[in-house]
Each structure stands twice: as structure tokens, then as C-alpha cells.
């Protein structure tokens, strides 16, 4: 029943997409489109939430797609959870777009694809056979590719679109091969058939490798992340939010679906690969972000980081499960899934904020922003909440899920294998490093963008964004606080999912006891109670304020900045994004990016300005993608003369083929 209703929502979204080709022409039409999308996704959201709590499994077969297979759909706990994530993010984006989308410069390039993109993501999660899955998956890529190209006059966006679609094609083909392996030689593409027989170790390893390539390239696992910081920022901000906050989660879903459900990976060595990749991804992702001064790109790189954290969690869950430690597996899986949910909240929020900034100033480059907290106080406040949440600061939601991940890592002594016992702490160290660097990065992101003095006229004149956009941000910010305050409720809601993929669930007192602390496993003394912490902090702040009112001189006076007595009126003397990250670049960047600083100092007496130039080398691009591009170019150049042969030479080719073929036959017979 729920499944049918969800599919109807998807169909409705497609209908909206078709209608949007006409509706995009005027403002009421756009409002209608986004409004309808928001309404449909909200309905889908409530349906999937019901599906999650309902706990049953529904399946449905429609007579479309491959004739002998049909299109199979299935709603189970895992799918329901990811549908919640997808539709929550989609609803938030649609609502945000009700305001933000009015300023859209190319609405007819955005509106038709936006609902279709959301519908495709829903279908990926619902699909229950390889064909429907990949169909929806690649359609999702195609629609989002079109959205990336919505500002196609910009050459960088076109390049981003190109790299994106090639990576997407690569990912789809890898997944296709993975399903090919799982389906076996008789080509049974139904997930039910794949579930039925467990692959042997070699096959499982192959499947894992291919799924990491396929889902990993969409999620942004290093080194397959290169498209992500290019493509996510290129799209309009509400779409960036969807791509970064939601689509990467769909990729996580794909991985989880295959690893936990279809292939049922049960060898610890395989999980070790996932953990290691996750750790590396987390650290490199955040380091990339630190080197960045384009606000949206910085956010996209943070998606890479968070995907790393999620994959560490999933890898740990696989590892625990492989060793029969189901309670621990449930903890790790819940941590990862909770982080999935949380990341979709704050990443959408942050992209909305960056969209508001972009709308107000037409600037994404942080070096040309600054001081926006004065012009856009509300946006600044919401962005700050998002920034704190993504930096894993208590009492917000990002901390809660990272706390759970760390708790899962602390259970690593239970591993019987030495490899995992060493790997898990190492992954923990990487996560810790990533968390600390993320905080540093968001001090930069928020500080340089919103604080200080305006670095450009646009930043000086920016205006607060519209009420609807602010409402969307406020809603997400509130959710970040709520999920941080009562994480127990959310982990309790995840119980059916972890029961499904890890055969156990975290101890909880259910949804009805939001005040109960988060306890990682039965009998553990460790606990975290966001609500109490929040109350304590509120009380402390109230006490301090009260004390100030009673004890302190409450008057304030405005004066020019002190700055050790040498205030400089030029905003250029402030710290910018580059200079802020300079210490960290010197510590980490020299290793990760071979960062070099070149200083051009004019001769004494010369009035030319001194310049400092920073050179960063992206190791992944240099080591993998540039050689591939060069290789393709080289092969193409080498082959190209074959277009310019003479007829006689072409005849020679035919003749030689014939002779070779006949000779082979003569030898064969």
C-alpha cells in the first residue's frame, strides 16, 4: 500500500517535471512547480517514515522495463530510511527554491529536471532489480548532469558537467558489472535472486571492488571524488544541496544495499578495505576543503569528508558483522546511518546558506566576501548552526553521530583479527584528525564569509535573502538542534534498519523517551545525553548573563578597532581564506598536495607589489586522471592518421583481414 503510494508520488514528480517544461516560463508557474514538488516530497516523506516505523516489507512488480523481468520495487527498512533522507532533503530544497528559485536566471534549464531528479533518486532506493536500479541510477545522473549545466555559459560549468557525466558513466558501468557478477551467467537480475545465493570470497571481493568503484564514484570516495567539487557547486544552490546532501546518500544506499543485503559480504578482509578507504577519504576530503576558497566547492569537499566518515562506519559494521558481533555491528551501522541523516541536514542547510550568499552578492569566492553577518544576520545564524553541526561540535547532531562512530571504534578490541584491531584505531585517528580539521575549515568558511569586513563592493551591499528561503534554512537548523538534543529518538527509529542489516539494534528506550541518554551497547557505562547537555549549556549561559547583569558594568561603547594600535582601513589587510589556511597548509599541505609557496619580492627601491604565489598539486588528479586524459589523447592521436589513408591502403586492410581469416581457417580445419 505504502509502496504504491510512494510510486504514485514518483509518478507525480515525473508529471510535474513534464509540466515544468511549460510552467518554467513565468513566476507563478515556477512557484507552482516547486510547490507541487515540495508537496509531493512531503507526502513521500511521511509515507516513507511510516514505512520505516511500520517495519514490514512490501514488494511490487510493474510490467515495464525488461519484459521478462518487469520493474520490481521493494520497500523495506533500509529503503524506507533512505527515502526519508531523500525526501526530507528534497522537500527542504523545494521549499528553499520557492524563494531562491525566483531569482533563477535560467529557470527553463532547472525546473523540468529538478522534480525528475528527485523522482529518480526515489526510484533508485525503491528498485528491487538490477535493471530498474541502474535505470533509475543513470537517469539520476543524467538529470543532475543537466542541472549542473544549467548555467552553461560558464566554461568551468561545462567542464564540470563533462567530468561528471563521464564519472557517472564509469560508475554505472562498474555497478552494472557488479550486478552482472551477482546475477550469474543465467542473468537473473532480480535482487531477490541475488539475495538467494551468497557469493564465494573471490566473487564477493570482485563485487565489493566494483561497488566501491560504482557507488564510490557517486558518493565521492577518494580517488573517485574529482567530479564532485566541480559539479556540485556548478548547479544552482538548491540543486547543489540535493546533489551533495542527498544524491551522495543514494550512493551510500547503493553500497549498503549491495554490501549488506545482496552480496552479503562476510569476510573481514573486505570490510578492512572499506574502513581504510573511508579513513583516507575523510582526511583527504577535509584537507582539500581547507585549501579551497570557493565557498560551494569547500562545501562539496566536505561532502567527501563526511562520506569518508560514513564509510568508516559502514566498514566497521561489516567487520563486526563478519565476526558475528551483532551488537557492535548494529552500533556501527546506526552510527553511519545516523550520520547519513545528519549530513543530509546540515549539508543542505550549508548549501542553502551559500546560495543565499550567492544570491545576495553574486560571489562564491570567499576572498571577495566578508562581513555578511551585518547584512544577512539570519542567514549567518543558520549557517553558523550548520557549520557547528558539520564540525561535530556538541550539542549538535554531527557530534552525536560521530560520537557513535567513535564508540564503535572503541569496540575494536573485540575483533579477533589483528589487522582490524590495528586498523580501527588508525581509522579513529583519521576521523579525529578529520573532525578537528573540519572545525578549522568551518571557522574559515564562516569567519571569512560572514565575519570581518567586506572584501568587495558586492559583499558590502548584499541584502538578506527572502523569507521562504530563510524558513527552509530555519527548519533544517532546528532539525540539526533537535537531532543533536534527542539523538536517542533517532537511533531508536533506525532500529529496524540496523536489525535488517546487522541483525541487531542499539539499546534504546524507544521513540517515546527522548530524554534518555544515548548508550552505545548494553552494559556500557558510556553515555551521551544531548538534551541534558543542551539544558546545562542553556542554564550556564543564562547564569552567566544573569551574573553579568548583576555584577558587571553593562554599558558598551563603540570605537574603531584597536588592532594593537595599528588599524588599517583596507579590508585587504584582513586574514583571507588563503592566509587563514596557511598554517595548516604548511603542516599538512606540503605532504598531501606538495604545496609550494613562491614569494616574489621586488628589489629595494622598486615600488612593485610583493606577491606570494601558492602552488598546489592535486595528487589524485596528477596520479590518475591526468594520465588517463593524456592516454586517451595519445591513443586518439596515434589512431587519427587512419582517417587519412588512401583507398589502396584501406583495401589493403580488407585484403589482409581476408587473408588472415582464411589462413586461420586453413590452419583450424
Amino acid at each position: 500500500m505504502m509502496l504504491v503510494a510512494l510510486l504514485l508520488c514518483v509518478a507525480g514528480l515525473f508529471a510535474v517535471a513534464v509540466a515544468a517544461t511549460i510552467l518554467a516560463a513565468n513566476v507563478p508557474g515556477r512557484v507552482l512547480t516547486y510547490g507541487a514538488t515540495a508537496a509531493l516530497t512531503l507526502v513521500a516523506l511521511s509515507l516513507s517514515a511510516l514505512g520505516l516505523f511500520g517495519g514490514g516489507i512490501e514488494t511490487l512488480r510493474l510490467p515495464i522495463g525488461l519484459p521478462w523481468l518487469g520493474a520490481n520495487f521493494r520497500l523495506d527498512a533500509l529503503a524506507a530510511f533512505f527515502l526519508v533522507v531523500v525526501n526530507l532533503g528534497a522537500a527542504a530544497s523545494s521549499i528553499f527554491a520557492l524563494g531562491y528559485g525566483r531569482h533563477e536566471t535560467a529557470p527553463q534549464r532547472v525546473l523540468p529536471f529538478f522534480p525528475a531528479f528527485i523522482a529518480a533518486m526515489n526510484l533508485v532506493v525503491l528498485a528491487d532489480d538490477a535493471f530498474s536500479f541502474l535505470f533509475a541510477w543513470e537517469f539520476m545522473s543524467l538529470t543532475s548532469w543537466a542541472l549542473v549545466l544549467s548555467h552553461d555559459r560558464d566554461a568551468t560549468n561545462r567542464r564540470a558537467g563533462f567530468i561528471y557525466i563521464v564519472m557517472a558513466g564509469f560508475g554505472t558501468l562498474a555497478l552494472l558489472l557488479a550486478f552482472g557478477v551477482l546475477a550469474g551467467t543465467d542473468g537473473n537480475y532480480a535482487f531477490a535472486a541475488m539475495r538467494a545465493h551468497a557469493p564465494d570470497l573471490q566473487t564477493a571481493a570482485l563485487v565489493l571492488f566494483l561497488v566501491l568503484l560504482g557507488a564510490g564514484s557517486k558518493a565521492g570516495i577518494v580517488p573517485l571524488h574529482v567530479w564532485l567539487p566541480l559539479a556540485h557547486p556548478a548547479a544552482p544552490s538548491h540543486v547543489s544541496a540535493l546533489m551533495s546532501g542527498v544524491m551522495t546518500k543514494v550512493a551510500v544506499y547503493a553500497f549498503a544495499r549491495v554490501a549488506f543485503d545482496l552480496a552479503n559480504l562476510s569476510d573481514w578482509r573486505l570490510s578492512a578495505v572499506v574502513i581504510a578507504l573511508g579513513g583516507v577519504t575523510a582526511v583527504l576530503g577535509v584537507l582539500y576543503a581547507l585549501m579551497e576558497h570557493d565557498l560551494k566547492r569547500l562545501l562539496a569537499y566536505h561532502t567527501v569528508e563526511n562520506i569518508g566518515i560514513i564509510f568508516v562506519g559502514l566498514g566497521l559494521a561489516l567487520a563486526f558483522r563478519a565476526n558475528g558481533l551483532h551488537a557492535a555491528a548494529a552500533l556501527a551501522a546506526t552510527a553511519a546511518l545516523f550520520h547519513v541523516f545528519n549530513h543530509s541536514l546540515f549539508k543542505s542547510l550549508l548549501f542553502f546558506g551559500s546560495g543565499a550568499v550567492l544570491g545576495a552578492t553574486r560571489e562564491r569566492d570567499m576572498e571577495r566576501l566578508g562581513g555578511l553577518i551585518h547584512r544577512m544576520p539570519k542567514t549567518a545564524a543558520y549557517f553558523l548552526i550548520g557549520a557547528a553541526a558539520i564540525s561535530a561540535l556538541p550539542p549538535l547532531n554531527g557530534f552525536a553521530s560521530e560520537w557513535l562512530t567513535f564508540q564503535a571504534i572503541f569496540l575494536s578490541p573485540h575483533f579477533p583479527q589483528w589487522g582490524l584491531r590495528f586498523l580501527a584505531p588508525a581509522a579513529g585517528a583519521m576521523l579525529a584528525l578529520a573532525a578537528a580539521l573540519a572545525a578549522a575549515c568551518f571557522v574559515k568558511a564562516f569567519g571569512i564569509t560572514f565575519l570581518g569586513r567586506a572584501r568587495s563592493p558586492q559583499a558590502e551591499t548584499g541584502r538578506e535573502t527572502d523569507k521562504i528561503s530563510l524558513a527552509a534554512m530555519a527548519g533544517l537548523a532546528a532539525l540539526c538542534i533537535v537531532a543533536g538534543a534527542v539523538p536517542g529518538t533517532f537511533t531508536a527509529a533506525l532500529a529496524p534498519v540496523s536489525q535488517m542489516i546487522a541483525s541487531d539494534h542499539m539499546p534504546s528506550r524507544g521513540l517515546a523517551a527522548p530524554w534518555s541518554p544515548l548508550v552505545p551497547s548494553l552494559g556500557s557505562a558510556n553515555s551521551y545525553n544531548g538534551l541534558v547537555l543542551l539544558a546545562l549549556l542553556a542554564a550556564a549561559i543564562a547564569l552567566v548573563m544573569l551574573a553579568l547583569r548583576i555584577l558587571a558594568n553593562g554599558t558598551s561603547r563603540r570605537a574603531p578597532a584597536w588592532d594593537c594600535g595599528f588599524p588599517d582601513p583596507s579590508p585587504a589587510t584582513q586574514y583571507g581564506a588563503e592566509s587563514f589556511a596557511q598554517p595548516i597548509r604548511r603542516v599538512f599541505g606540503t605532504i598531501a598536495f606538495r604545496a609550494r609557496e613562491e614569494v616574489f619580492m621586488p628589489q629595494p627601491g622598486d615600488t612593485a607589489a610583493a606577491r606570494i604565489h601558492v602552488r598546489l598539486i592535486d595528487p589524485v588528479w596528477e596520479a590518475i586522471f591526468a594520465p588517463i586524459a593524456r592516454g586517451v589523447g595519445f591513443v586518439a592521436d596515434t589512431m587519427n592518421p587512419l582517417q587519412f589513408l588512401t583507398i589502396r591502403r584501406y583495401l589493403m586492410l580488407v585484403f589482409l583481414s581476408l587473408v588472415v581469416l582464411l589462413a586461420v581457417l586453413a590452419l583450424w580445419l
Partner: protein
Amino acid sequence: MMPPIDPALATLIVPACAALVLVIVPFSRLGGWINVLASFLTFVAALALLIVRPAAGALLAVDDLNIVFIVINTLVGFTTSVFSAGYIAHEVETGRLTPRYLRFYHAMFQFLMGSMNLALLTDITGLMWVAVEFATLTTVIMVSLYRTREALEAAWKYFILGSVGIALALFGTILVYMAAQPVVGDGLPAMTWGTLLANASRFDPALLNIAFAFLMLGYGTKAGLVPLHAWLPDAHAEGPTPISAVLSGLLLNVAIYAILRFKLLLAANPGAVAPGPLMMTMGLVSILFAGFMLYRRRDVKRFFAYSSIEHMGIIAFAFGLGGPLANFAGLLHMAMHSLTKSGIFFSIGHMTRIKGSQRIADITGLTSSHPLLGWIFVASVAAIAGLPPFGVFTSEFLVVSSAFAHKPLLAIVLVIGLLVSLGALFLRLNSLAFGEPTGSLAPSRMTHAPMILHLAIVLGAGIFLPAAIAAWFQHVARMLG
């Protein structure tokens, strides 16, 4: 109720009569309309075949293999005639063609359609060969229509290579006859598909093998498989665009169809060496070669001609791989490719006409300057690149996944080839459809209907494949082994 005239025969007679009429009719515009009408009638006749399938006659036979292709053939013929009515009229306006050539063009078009219909419908190997040969000759003339130095050179290249190919195919046909003759006796039965297929298991396998080698190279030349492809890019690039559409969409299919027919015989003969390795090798080489060649193309029609080579490679690979899934995929891919690629050539016709150039560098930002055309083109390229929701995705899905299950290493090569060409397609699409529009911004006055129709069919097939078509394809796929 039996139709008053055998529809299978009608698909041959209508074009033949129309060709005669068109030679006589002096007015170009009228000629265009007669062309459309005749093509439409042919298409209706072919549709009638779907409803009433006539019993196999002496010369013509309709079965599960050719029924879909005859419908596609006549459909694309019809849409192309609609497209070319506008296109060629414009060519006359700009003075690239004179009315005298035009008359010739329309007659030739009908003649070409008739030959291809004959090749598809005939029950006799020799007749099929004759039909393919005449189709080749007609297209050679069409390619040389503009009389430019380049067009003549391309036509000559096509002519020589095509003739050699056709000669090799004939030798193969004779060898098949020789293989059949001791079993089924002298005369026509030894050249009739039905009899051949029924008795194929008793043929001399060695002779069949050699025959297939010749047929593969002969008809493979017509299909544009590497290394026999050389005529194809130039013929596509230098001829009139409607002819490029027909070449890519139909003639290549006819060639593959011929190969399939003979492959059926081999599949039915247990002693024959399976032709799989040969077809897979040629297929993979075509895919990879075309994929890389795409990157250095500067002419938009030549670019998509190479894409056709790639797709012929995929089809050949699928059939070479064998098994019900891959064969089904190959058949589906043939159908989808011919619709999609001819649609692409229609849109290329629009854009080259607007911009007055075939150079990729001269065509930019179509989605901005001509939104409808631009987005149709984007969708068509996405379709040909094998992205959903279009039908090519379905066939590529089946090919890749079944290849990986049987021949993992080859599947990886296949995947690399697909990826390489996907990259090239989108690289060029980036500049063709997006960015700042340059050149003429005049609206296109030609109809968009044929492109939309093709796209809609491909879209529909991607989402829902009618059970009847699936059943026919599955039947043939099983016979292909």
C-alpha cells in the same frame, strides 16, 4: 479479412512505382510530396504486416526476424522523406542542388528504400545480395550528389570498398549454396532461407565456415566494422544529411541483418566453428577504434558516423557473444540504434542548415539559441550514449552484464570502449549544445516532428517493450544460439 494486396509485396511495389513516377515528375516540391506519400504508403503496408503476417511466398517471407526491421525500415524511410522534403527544398534554395538533381534524388530515394525492403523481406540469399548491391549503388550516387571534390572522393571510396565487400559477400553466398546443394539439391531451394535453415545441420561445416568468413567480411564492410569501415565516415559526412540518416539508420542494419541470417545457419549446424570469436573481435575493435577516433573529429557528421561504427561494433559483439540475452540485446540495439541515430542526423541537418557549416567548432550553444532543437539533440545524444530512459540503455545493459557473466575480460574491454565513446560524445555535446551560441541564430523552419517521433519511440521502448516484439526477438535470439 485479407488485405486486397499482399502487404509484403506492397512494400516493394510502392517504392518501385514511386521511383518511376518521380523520374517523370518535373516539379521539385511536388516530387518531395510524392516521396513522402509513397514512403507513408510503404510504411502503412509494413504496419499491416504486423497485423496480418502473410504466408511465405516464393520470393518473400516475413518472419520474426525481419518483421521488426521492415517496420523500422519503412518508418525511418517515411520520417526521412518528411525531413528531406524540407531539407532538400532548402538545398535547392541555396543553390547547392539543381532541380534536375533533385528529381534524380527523390527517385533514387524510393529506389533505395525498395532495395532495402527487398533485402529484408526476400527469402532468397541471391536476391538479398542483389538488393544490397543495388542499395549500395544508389547510396553511392546519393553521396556524390553535391559534386564537390570531397563528395566525389567519398563516393569513390565508398564505391570501391563497397564493391569489394559486395564481391566477397557474393563469394560467400555461392559457397553457402555449394554447401547446401549436396543436401537439398540443385536450384532455388538451396538458396531459400526456409529450406536452408531446416537442413543446415547436415551441411558441410567446413564449407559453411569459409562461407561465413567471406560473408562476415563482405557484409561487414557494408556494416562498417573496423577494419572494413573506411568508407563510412566520409560517405556520411559528404552526402546529403537525409542520406546520412538512411545510411546509419537503415543500410547498416540491413548489412547486419544479412550477417544474422547466415549466422542462423551456422548456429543450426553443430559442426561449424562458432563465429563468435570473429564477431566479438571485430566488434570490440570497432568499439575501441571508433571510440578513440571520435576525439579527433571536427566534422559533426563524420563524428556521428564514427559513433555508428561503434554501435555496429556493439551489435556485432552482442551477436558474437551469443546466448539468448546477448542476442536479444543485439536485436534490440539494432532497432534502437537505427531510430536514434537517424534522429540525430535529422537534428544535425537542422543545425548545419542553420549554421551553414558542418564543423563542430561552428555550432555552439544550441540549447540557448534553439531550445527545442537543442534539447532534442541533447536527449538523442544521451540516448545514443546509452543513458536511460532510452532504449539503448536497455540493450547496452544486457550486453554488458551478460558479457561480464561469460567473458569478463572482454566485458572490461567493452566497458572501456563504451566509456571512451561516452566521453567523446559528451565532450562534443558540451560545445554543440551548450555555451554561448555563435553564428546564425535564425530559427529552423523545418519540422521537428520526425526527431520527436524517433525520440518518443526510443523513450517508449526504454520504458516499456511490447510483449509481441519481445517475443519475436526472444524467438530469434534462441535460434541464433
